[in-house]
């Protein structure tokens, strides 16, 4: 089998290919353990496990050179330690999942209708808005709460790129199967 040689002028694709290889391995492990008569609950649990496996594979592919990937690896390896007999992340016990691993589909709470009147925004400082947006960003980026603003912005850029790569690989695989 020809080795996957990353192109020198496009280092991003090297991570993408590493992720693809790891993710395929996770998929094949999961397919070997699939139940004979899957219930809808079982399918739901397995897709949760696959989602976690995808984040794990991406974080492994980036390695420890990024704060966001280190945060994911630390968080998910704690989950694995609690359930060492699970090869995949089947999350039987309810562990409080951080927002950056994506929320599970729950019944959506009815959102309050906040009418954005122009007067309320005039009163609010641009700095206040910036602060608020930065806090929201810290919640969605792994490890974001511990970073200074410059690191947060740098890590966010890299995280967004890798997340987009992850989605592209998963789309390609899904398209290939169907």
């Amino acid at each position, binding site marked *: 089998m020809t080795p996957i040689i990353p192109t020198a002028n496009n280092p991003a694709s090297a991570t993408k290919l590493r992720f693809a290889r790891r993710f395929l391995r996770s998929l094949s492990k999961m397919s070997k353990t699939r139940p004979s008569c899957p219930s809808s609950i079982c399918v739901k649990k397995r*897709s949760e496990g696959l989602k976690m496996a995808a984040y794990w594979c991406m974080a492994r592919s980036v390695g420890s050179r990024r704060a966001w990937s280190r945060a994911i690896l630390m968080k998910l390896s704690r989950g694995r330690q609690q359930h060492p007999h699970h090869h995949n992340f089947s999350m039987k016990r309810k562990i409080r999942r951080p927002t950056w691993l994506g929320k599970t589909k729950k019944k959506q709470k009815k959102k309050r209708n906040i009418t954005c009147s122009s007067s309320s925004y005039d009163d609010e400082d641009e700095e206040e808005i910036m602060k608020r947006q930065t806090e929201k960003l810290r919640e969605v980026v792994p490890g974001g709460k511990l970073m200074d603003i410059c690191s947060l912005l740098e890590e966010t850029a890299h995280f967004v790129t890798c997340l987009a790569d992850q989605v592209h690989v998963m789309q390609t695989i899904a398209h290939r*199967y169907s």
Partner: protein
Amino acid sequence: MSGQKSCRASNLNENEINDLVWRLQALLPRLNRRTDSRVSVSKILKETCSHIKKLQKEVEELSERVIELMESADITEIDEESLRRLLLH
């Protein structure tokens, strides 16, 4: 003058931050087309958050789809070589 020094340091920081924020804008599909008009920093941050959430939702939906497909198809059909070709082109 420590006051002046801190003022200079904060100015440098602001330039650095602005630079990083414009780089973020380049990654956002909804904002990077409008390179001529100035987009506010807070708008870029807001759009980044919603873009990340959108990608996370896609990961979730794709995981469900792949699991459903896994029930019917045989995974070993996809080999790394063909996936590599699909991804690089």
